[in-house]
């Protein structure tokens, strides 16, 4: 049996098991996709703690709504769509909190400031690069680079047209390249 087909069969078996309430299947799903969701959330949010929270919320939502998953669609894309939406929600909440903090003239005391609590893990995208891109552009870049997603696949996750997804990707690649060319010390400075 080919590797891709085997993976697909495994995926269907895991989904079926999760729908039956099997703890082993739930665990298998988290082990199969946990790192993928964590890496995407980390690249979008730029903060390990937030990314872990998003990961947790994403899988709990997946377990809760698995009966609504359309088998005609890619499971990975469905999962990443949930993770992306959750990440956007968190970014919005943090933005509102920061705006409120500025208005109330006190410093935010939560996430976003802490360093990497897992020293063995790599640091996310350097902050200057992270700030240069919108959440949609970061997501598009991440899915394209690591998952080999096409504009159509990315558009499914971002809930936009394929041509719009292509523009997000163009912009992300253009901006980062320009930043790298203009500032060689960017990566070292983070």
């Amino acid at each position, binding site marked *: 049996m080919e590797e891709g087909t085997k993976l697909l069969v495994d995926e269907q078996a895991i989904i079926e098991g*999760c*729908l*039956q*309430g099997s*703890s082993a299947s*739930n*665990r298998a799903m*988290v*082990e199969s996709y*946990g*790192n*993928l969701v*964590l*890496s995407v959330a*980390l*690249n979008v949010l730029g903060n390990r703690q937030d990314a*872990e929270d998003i*990961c*947790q919320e994403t*899988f*709990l939502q997946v*377990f*809760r709504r*698995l*009966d609504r998953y359309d088998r005609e669609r890619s499971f990975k894309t469905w999962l990443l769509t949930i993770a992306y939406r959750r990440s956007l929600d968190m970014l919005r909440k943090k933005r509102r909190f920061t705006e409120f903090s500025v208005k109330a003239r006190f410093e935010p005391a939560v996430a976003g400031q802490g360093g990497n609590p*897992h020293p*063995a*893990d*790599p*640091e*996310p*995208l*350097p902050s200057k*690069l992270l700030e240069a891109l919108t959440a949609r552009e970061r997501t598009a*870049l*991440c899915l*394209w*680079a*690591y998952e080999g997603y096409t504009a159509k696949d990315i558009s499914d996750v971002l809930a936009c047209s394929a*041509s*719009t997804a*292509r*523009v997000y990707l*163009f*912009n*992300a*690649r*253009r901006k*980062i*390249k*320009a930043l*790298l060319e203009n500032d060689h010390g960017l*990566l070292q400075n983070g």
Partner: protein
Amino acid sequence: MDFCKTVELAYAVLPLRPFRDWLIRAHMERCPRCQARLLSREEAKSLLVGPDQVDGAEALWRRISGEAGRVAAVPEPAPGRGALVWRWAAAAAMAAVVAVTGFWLLREIGRPGFDPRAVAPAERFQIDYVNVGGAPAQTFVYQPQGTDTVFIWASRTPQKEG
């Protein structure tokens, strides 16, 4: 190169996003110079965190295993018969209110009193006396030309000093 800069400038100033998107897409897909100025997949990989670089699945499972067992495979309860009856009843009540209101409006409009032609002409509009706060008020009546609308402005008469 100048054309590329013009496109970038146009992209920055064009107000409508669909046009901007079309412009950048059409240009980027055809211009070899601009394509060379795009980040490669390998470069992107060296900047981003990949799934093979994080190790969080085990820890994640430890965090959610308890809750996962509780939430998994619990189908949302279908609305009961009682809820369904109430929904139909509310919809029927709403339809009845709309029908009665519509009927009443039609009837009122159909009455001669509601015929705009039957309304007294504005030149015959007359106010005998206007009081504001128990005292005679300054009153202005204004009718825009060519309309049957009459505006009445009444304000308290200023007290004379001394």
